[in-house]
């Protein structure tokens, strides 16, 4: 059953991802991204990462993309007559993209390339991916990084305010 679920989710994911990239309306792109994020959250659930999944929905879909939508609406961006780049770039991008995918797949699939790239998933302990285990990691091994993110966020807040504030003439 899981492969079936995975297959359905994967197809939906790819469709919505292409929706982000190919749709001419920015609002629709953003909404496709929300769908993508939601589906990836489901993938996280399948990978025993419930907390990350919930955070994905709450923070990514619920806040960050809303911010995008907010800006899109603020700038009142409508459908573009010419959404894509010029042909030469389009061509090289598609070429490069397929090469890129090829290289990634080779890295991930080819046997003896990557030690953990093959094989099935083994069972995990019940508290794997729980709030407790993630929190314990966050506040012990990764404490410094965690604290530094607070500074990053502060800087981002100040930067956003300074940049977006209309200068008084």
């Amino acid at each position, binding site marked *: 059953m899981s492969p079936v679920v995975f297959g359905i989710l994967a197809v939906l994911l790819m469709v919505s991802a292409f929706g982000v990239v190919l749709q001419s309306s920015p609002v629709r792109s953003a909404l496709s991204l929300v769908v993508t994020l939601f589906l990836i959250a489901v993938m996280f659930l399948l990978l025993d990462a419930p907390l990350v999944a919930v955070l994905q929905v709450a923070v990514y879909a*619920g806040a960050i993309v809303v911010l995008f939508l907010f800006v899109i*609406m603020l700038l009142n961006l409508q459908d573009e007559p010419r959404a894509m780049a010029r042909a030469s770039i389009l061509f090289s991008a598609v070429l490069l993209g397929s090469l890129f995918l090829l290289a990634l797949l080779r890295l991930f699939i080819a046997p003896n390339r990557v030690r953990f790239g093959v094989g099935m998933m083994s069972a995990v302990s019940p508290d794997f991916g729980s709030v407790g285990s993630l929190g314990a990691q966050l506040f012990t091994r990764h404490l410094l990084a965690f604290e530094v993110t607070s500074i990053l966020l502060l800087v981002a807040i100040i930067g956003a305010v300074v940049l977006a504030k209309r200068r008084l003439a």
Partner: protein
Amino acid sequence: MVLEIGIALLRIVAVLAMVMVMAGIYGWFERKVSALMQDRIGANRASIFGFAGAGLINTMMADPLKFATKEDFVPSGVDRLLHTLAPCVGLFAVLVAFAALPFGDTVQVGGRYVPLQAVPLNVGILYILAMLSLSVYGVVLGGWASNNRFSFLGGIRGSAQMISYELAMGLSLVAMVMTYGTIDLQEMVRAQGHLIGGWLPAWGIFYQPLAFLLFLIAGIAETKRAPFDLPEGESELVGGYFTEYSGMKYLMFFMSDFIEVGVVAGIIATLFFGGWQVPYLGADGFHFPFGLSLALPAVVVILLQLATFLLKVVFFGWLQILIRWTLPRLRYDQLMWLGWKGMLPVSLFNVLATALIVLAVQGSR
């Protein structure tokens, strides 16, 4: 396997039904309470044999029928897909949010343990937050897809307002999580079955009165109801983000509004007022502090608990409607001021104070 799926489906259907009924009750409250407060009769055509209270049934049947039969008007030049999607997204988000609320203890039926909860999740409360944060898309999309300045302004206002108040809301819940030491809602409710000093039920409100106040305010702001109803402020924006909606879609917006009231009421009941816990009621009956005991069969206990939970949810929904008809609407700058400069610092302070107290209590053990 089939049985399990069946039980799960049953739970889900039960919750859905409950939510729908709840929304209907709130709709009726809205009319009768407002009428009462404004010293008028209100919804007088919906009484049965002159008894207004029985109009509840009438309202619950008649209103949806009325909306369903109305013309589904779509303005020209809109993104039809998004226009249709908007109310669905909104409704979906609040409906699934309800799924994590426990409405009774785990019951033992024929050797299986069945939690009285649509979806037992170990990330419980975070899940509800996540889903509630998705409900903003209904507002934003509705505003955007209507191709109407008023709708658009309503959508913009709504998104900013909901993101702003989500912070205070989340932080007040963080304080609760710290108090209980778990994020599992069922666990939280169980923890409230104890007694403080042998007589006072150990409800969250007694531990975290400030968090309750914060959550109540933020919750009302999240539901976009007065005094925080700026996204739909009739006197300014006609109807805000659902100006251009009619028929079933309008009903869906309407329902998601009331269901959200229900969700907020449910969270308040669960976190601050003992959820399905009845004071002094244990699994085998009442044990009053003054020594009296009253043994009850398990089924009665479960039904009592279920009824209590529903009663609490209805009560807090009613309270919100009371507030909605009592307070005047804020100005937008006041709204933002309250959210960012009032609620956010206070809730941060609350988290800090809670952390210190928890630390002190743990240290003294």
